[in-house]
């Protein structure tokens, strides 16, 4: 039996060489994993992000695809339909072609085994206008290492090879499908799996000795008579295509569909969920050659130890705030703008102190602060810390971590800090608007200056100034048609108002403090964002040992003038929310619920779900429902969107706390609009989580 297992395993491994990247699934012309037009039941690894582009006349389609779990594919498609005008009103949209956007999702129902295929259920174009709306059930099975067969059942636009709908045997409600194309946004549950069904099938074959080249052949399930805005001519239901994996991540594709159309495209997918997904050679902790000499000096007096700590921690971008030596226990308090992982920051600090502190110090305690707020303390025996360097998982039993209230008067060493301390960053910024009736792309290239001035540990002023360089925003014409107070839909006026000159994105003063170890509060005033200034505050209860938080925020806001300088318009309101957070420890999903009053004085809730991966990648989605109707909200029916936050350090040998993010809100309306203020407390207190520290404990020796 063992020999059989080994033979099978080795055979599979040889196939990895013979058919390079055969396990890496490929994208269809539709923009999600699939054959040519048809979907398959394949998924990328969780934590993967994908991008696909295809020219499939008359469609140009770009897709962003995310895999928050191994069993879930979620995607956003943006399609240019070039055989149809955006509108029939020349004054409105000129000769611009029709643009469509949609959300798709696919879930895995059954994982593939040696006997059973992988089975998935998917929905296309839900929450959109319905031009490409369809549902499907698909099974995929791999035979050997280079043949993958998929077969499925489709509804909606996937019913070309029609059969009677098997679900009508369960209920009559599956007989009819409204196929209504409307203003979009709503999810029409009644239409799911309704109407005539159809079958589809296909194969993907990795051709040997051709560096992973794949051949795809399929019986197309797409109903071109009902899909999209105009029916398309189909001379054949059999499509052919080839995929060439230039690398494991980057594929190019060429296909022949409908018996009359050549298509081409490319896709890129990358797995970003693991600890070091791009295999960067990270800079190790520095080992001091003259450690023994330093220890003899620090042993002579406490002040020598304090000063050595200040110097050598600073070399690792760890800023010593306070320190105390009590018999054989040495405690330091620090802040760092470098290490995202609290365990890594603590490990660096402990490792440096271990190399400079005299040997009679037995215990090291490190505490991190952020914005003058205590985040956590970690205390460990020096001997234990050194003993388990090759096996950090054992350290978990011996390292003590706690919440921490930062009391500035409790320490013997208080290095003077020169205030104000000012930090600046600058660079280009592009504001863009894509896919509106006025034109496909409007952009405003600006030069951005971000500053932070620390007036004390707890008081800061953050600012973001921009200067417009070049833009084409003057061609934007679209006026708001919202029946609600125009709290967001005057966006065109703001975009045009800030062009070609100086504007203030943010000028916000903050005061932070904490009541006990677990309760943090912040008071803020100034210009919060592009459209609002005001004053207010928030409070957050976030116990270190627990995975939840409860907060409350309240703001008095004034609508800013369109030039985004210091004048205001005639609108002011009070907005406030109760915020609930729960971080599920096993999956690392963060559930956020925000309930209260929004900028347009509507009341409701925002549900935000996100998942944070081992690498720090965060992907999430949100929606907001308030007491206004879908009709009052307008196009899109309700507010929703998704976002990604990617740690910069993934792409560098250095460590950074920074992330860069990208988000998309398909439509900007006034309902469910929340204030966008800087540095919310949940983010500021991010290191204050025992689960976060322990989950990444293996970083402690990095």
């Amino acid at each position, binding site marked *: 039996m063992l020999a059989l297992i080994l033979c099978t395993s080795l055979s599979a491994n040889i196939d990895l060489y013979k058919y390079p990247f055969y396990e890496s699934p490929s994208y269809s012309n539709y923009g999600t994993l699939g054959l040519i037009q048809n979907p398959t039941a394949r998924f990328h690894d969780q934590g993967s992000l994908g991008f696909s582009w295809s020219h499939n006349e008359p469609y140009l389609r770009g897709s962003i695809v995310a895999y928050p779990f191994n069993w879930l594919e979620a995607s956003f498609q943006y399609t240019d339909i070039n055989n149809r005008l955006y509108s029939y009103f020349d004054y409105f949209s000129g000769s611009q072609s029709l643009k469509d956007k949609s959300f798709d999702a696919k879930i895995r129902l059954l994982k593939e085994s040696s006997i059973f295929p992988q089975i998935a259920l998917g929905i296309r174009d839900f929450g959109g206008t319905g031009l490409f709306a369809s549902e499907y059930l698909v099974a995929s099975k791999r035979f050997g290492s280079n043949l993958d067969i998929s077969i499925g059942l489709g509804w909606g636009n996937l019913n070309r090879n029609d059969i009677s709908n098997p679900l009508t045997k369960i209920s009559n409600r599956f007989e009819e499908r409204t196929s209504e194309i409307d203003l979009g946004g709503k999810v029409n549950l009644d239409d799911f799996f309704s109407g005539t069904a159809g079958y589809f099938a296909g194969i993907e074959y990795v051709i040997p000795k051709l560096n992973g080249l794949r051949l795809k052949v399929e019986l197309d399930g797409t109903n071109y008579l009902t899909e999209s805005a105009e029916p398309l001519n189909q001379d054949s239901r059999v499509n052919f295509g080839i995929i060439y994996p230039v690398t494991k991540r980057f594929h190019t594709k060429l296909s022949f569909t409908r018996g009359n159309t050549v298509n081409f495209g490319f896709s890129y997918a990358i797995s970003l969920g693991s600890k070091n997904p791009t295999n960067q050679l990270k800079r190790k902790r520095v080992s001091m050659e003259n450690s023994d000499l330093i220890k003899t000096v620090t042993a002579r007096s406490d002040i020598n130890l304090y000063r050595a700590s200040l110097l050598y921690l600073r070399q690792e971008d760890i800023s010593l705030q306070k320190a105390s030596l009590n018999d054989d226990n040495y405690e330091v308090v620090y802040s760092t703008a470098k290490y995202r992982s609290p365990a890594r920051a603590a490990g660096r600090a402990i490792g440096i102190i271990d190399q400079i502190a005299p040997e009679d110090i037995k215990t090291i305690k490190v505490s991190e602060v952020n914005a003058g707020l205590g985040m956590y303390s970690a205390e460990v025996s020096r001997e234990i810390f050194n003993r388990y360097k090759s096996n950090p998982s054992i350290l978990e039993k011996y390292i003590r971590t706690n919440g921490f209230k930062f009391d500035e008067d409790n320490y013997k060493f208080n290095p003077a800090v020169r205030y104000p301390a000012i930090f600046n960053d600058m660079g280009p910024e592009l504001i863009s608007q894509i*896919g509106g009736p006025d034109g496909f792309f409007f952009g405003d290239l600006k030069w951005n200056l971000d500053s932070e001035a620390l007036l004390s540990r707890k008081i800061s002023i953050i600012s973001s100034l921009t200067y417009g360089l070049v833009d084409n925003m003057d061609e934007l014409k679209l006026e708001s048609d919202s029946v609600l107070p125009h709290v967001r839909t005057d966006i065109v006026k703001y975009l045009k108002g800030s062009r070609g000159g100086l504007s203030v994105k943010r000028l916000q003063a903050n005061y932070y403090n904490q009541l006990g170890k677990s309760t943090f509060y912040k008071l803020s005033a100034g210009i919060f964002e592009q459209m609002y200034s005001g004053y207010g505050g928030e409070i957050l209860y976030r116990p270190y040992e627990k995975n939840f938080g409860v907060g409350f925020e309240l703001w008095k806001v004034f609508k800013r003038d369109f030039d985004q300088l210091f004048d205001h318009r005639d609108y002011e309101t009070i907005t406030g929310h109760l915020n609930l957070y729960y971080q599920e420890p096993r999956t690392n999903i963060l559930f956020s619920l925000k309930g209260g009053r929004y900028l347009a004085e509507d009341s409701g809730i925002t549900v935000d779900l996100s998942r944070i991966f081992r690498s720090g990648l965060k992907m999430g989605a949100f929606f907001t429902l308030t007491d206004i109707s879908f009709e009052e909200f307008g196009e899109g029916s309700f507010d929703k969107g998704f976002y990604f936050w990617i740690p910069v350090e993934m792409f560098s040998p250095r460590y950074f706390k920074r992330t860069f993010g990208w988000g998309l809100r398909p439509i*900007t309306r006034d309902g469910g609009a929340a204030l966008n203020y800087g540095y919310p407390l949940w983010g500021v207190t991010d290191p204050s989580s025992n689960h976060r520290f322990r989950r990444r404990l293996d970083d402690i020796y990095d």
Partner: protein
Amino acid sequence: MIYMIKKIFLLLCLSGCAVDLAYIEVFREGLKKNEINDLQPFLDTNLSFVKATKGKNQAIFILSDYNEGVEIWVGADNERISTYKGVIIRTSKLDHDMTVHNIEALQKNIFQDNIQLLASLSNPSVSYLNLELTLDKIITDDLDCIGKKYKYDMFISTIDFNSELLICISDAGEILSTYQRLNPFDEYIYLEYYYQYK
């Protein structure tokens, strides 16, 4: 007829991706070569070492053992490369390791004839593959090699893997450099030898 007036207000806000100069620096760092230009500190140790280049990364391996012609070179994170007459015969702790099982075939035929070896690869793991080294030509006028350059074609039939092995030897018989690829999923490794003791 229904006119579909789509007021799609797609605000693809790239302001969240304000590209400040710090990010540019980070990406530039991630892309640039990790080069070792100053070898003087290593020369000052009086130890023999090799400078290994793979892709954009370079690393130094110090000679730690020598036994019957087999040299073992050790890197900063305890990676190991074993060579015989410049030919890599075993590695450990690299991204893709390899092991040659019949070194005696190499000892008998190197620089003279074609060589049949038995090798195992890792990541993914496959064992006991037939590896053929066919002597293609000996180059004496290569500007990059002050001596002779032996060019072998390397072929592993089971996984249909072709690559080449280049060995540069000085007129005194000292290995100056080698260039070889261990795994189809890996890049070529270029080793430059700095012998300071024999």
